[in-house]
């Protein structure tokens, strides 16, 4: 079997996605970590990579040439996102609303009146961190402050994937388009949750979207002893494999709060995360 792409996701935030993703990547040989939580990218705080390259991510937005524009209004009428408005004297562009679909330039009857210029919305930083048996390839997408569209930044970050390495994708919380963009096309999705009513509610949403995407998935139950058994009952009913249960330990929470991955605080965790990877592979081979 080729190297896997494993997305680590959860409906609810703060359940331990980044912790699981960072510890998993540090426990595997020839691995790569890509932070797709571009609104709140945090993996770098635990992996402490050396960043070698930063690349801007942009989307094409329209620029209107006032000398060629006849103010016909076709572009504003066609734009489904209201990113263009026509006044009596000029066409106004609201670039932060534009998704770069190109419909305005397609409908414009005046050749050259609309050209597209790249507008920066974020960046991808890539480099290397120290992992097991050498280096862990690292990349992270980061959405600029005040920008609205995480999806192109996620897509750009995912393009850093090296297919020879086991790829761990750290997904954003929720089940909307940024989560979909991350989990789509992965070989496997690890859903990380906690045994609380919030954790269960958001897990059900994440399960629904992961099933629609056709990505096989299993559960990591974090802080498994703080809460009730409703999540485990749900997993039994839905035949969702529970691959790992992590009890709450104040020492773990404190290591996390100092930015220290568990596998560094206690090497026994490395074996547990290796075993997790083994169970994922077994599940896929079956």
């Amino acid at each position, binding site marked *: 079997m080729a190297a896997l792409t494993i997305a680590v996701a959860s409906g609810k935030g703060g359940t331990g996605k980044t912790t699981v993703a960072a510890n998993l990547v540090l426990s595997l040989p020839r691995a790569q970590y890509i932070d797709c939580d571009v*609104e*709140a990218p945090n993996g770098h705080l635990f992996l402490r990579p050396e960043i070698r390259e930063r690349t801007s991510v942009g989307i094409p937005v329209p620029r209107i040439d006032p000398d060629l524009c006849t103010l016909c209004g076709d572009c504003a009428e066609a734009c489904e996102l209201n990113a263009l408005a026509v006044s009596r004297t000029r066409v106004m562009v609201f670039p932060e609303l534009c998704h770069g679909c*190109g*419909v305005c330039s*397609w409908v414009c009857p005046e050749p050259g009146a609309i050209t597209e210029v790249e507008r920066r919305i974020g960046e991808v930083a890539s480099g290397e961190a120290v992992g097991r048996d050498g280096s862990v390839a690292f990349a992270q997408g980061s*959405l600029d402050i005040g920008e*609205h569209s995480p999806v192109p930044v996620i897509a750009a970050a995912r393009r850093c994937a090296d297919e020879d390495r086991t790829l761990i994708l750290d997904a954003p919380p*929720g089940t909307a*388009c940024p989560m979909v963009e991350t989990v789509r096309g992965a070989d496997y999705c690890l859903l990380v949750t906690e045994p609380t*009513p919030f954790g269960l509610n958001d897990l059900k949403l994440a399960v629904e979207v992961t099933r629609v995407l056709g990505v096989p998935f299993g559960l990591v139950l974090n802080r498994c002893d703080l809460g009730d058994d409703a999540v485990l009952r749900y997993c039994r009913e839905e035949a969702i494999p529970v691959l790992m249960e992590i009890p709450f330990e104040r020492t773990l929470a404190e290591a996390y709060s100092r930015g220290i991955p568990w596998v560094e605080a206690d090497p026994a965790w490395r074996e547990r995360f290796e075993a997790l990877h083994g169970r994922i592979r077994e599940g896929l081979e079956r």
Partner: protein
Amino acid sequence: MKELCIVSGKGGTGKTTVSAAFASLAGNKVMADCDVDAADLHLLLDPQVRRQEAFIGARTPRIDCELCGECGDCESWCRFDAIRLDFDAGYLIDPLACEHCGLCARVCPEEAIRMEDTVSGHWMVSDTRFGTLVHARLGIGEDNSGKLVTLVRREARRLAQEQGAELIIADGPPGIGCPVTSAITGVDLVLAVTEPTPSGFHDLERVASLCRHFSTPLTVCINKHDINPENSARIRDWCASNGVDVLAEIPFDPVVTRALVARRSVVDFDCGPVSDAVVGLWEAVSQRLSEMNRSGYAIPVNSDQLLMRGSPGP
């Protein structure tokens, strides 16, 4: 009427826990759950839905197979790889990849693609033991969450006016993207709940930048402050040098999870020092709100339009 929005940047720091406690402590108010992607506040408030409305987020293309000549123009023009040819079914639209721009419908020479209104979620008005709650559920994999947040806020404002409520308490979404922007633009006060971890701090800085960007007043509460006292001190220092007030620090206690499992807020369930800290936080927040100049942070007259403008997108 004042609007308070509770955010965090990083998820799971305790936004909803704080929101539910405020719901219990505040008098005449309307609650709004602006986390439309993974709404959880209703789990603690046990709402009886009074009214439910469909949310028409964006128009979605539909291909009429009878008319389609399979020329492939739609597939080659689409910039989001949302159209592909299926051997049996012909050209298909992937609804999770589609950005609803409508270019496919325009380029189709057979006019076989029509843009149709689609329901991409629901929003609800409910009665709870703590008063009115406006909440919503975005369909899975949908975009336009900002637009739905705007709808929730508008309805909450309308109901607050109708009920003569003085305050709207909104449980915000995580992150700093489109839904957060829609949740905080024009509110009177933002309360960021953070935790003394590298991620909590890092994301607090990003939320603070976003608040500065939109000139929204920000205050902070440090949750689980005793998990790492050095980091808590660092957050306090950073807040002091950035003119942001830390209104309270809440200790870590697993009893909070027990309250959650019992579906109670931390002020309706004996959480000891946690309950005390959250009550203190509420007093500080309400004091801050009452000190605010009524007109100073008022929502602009044409705020609906402004919010709509600033809102669409994923």
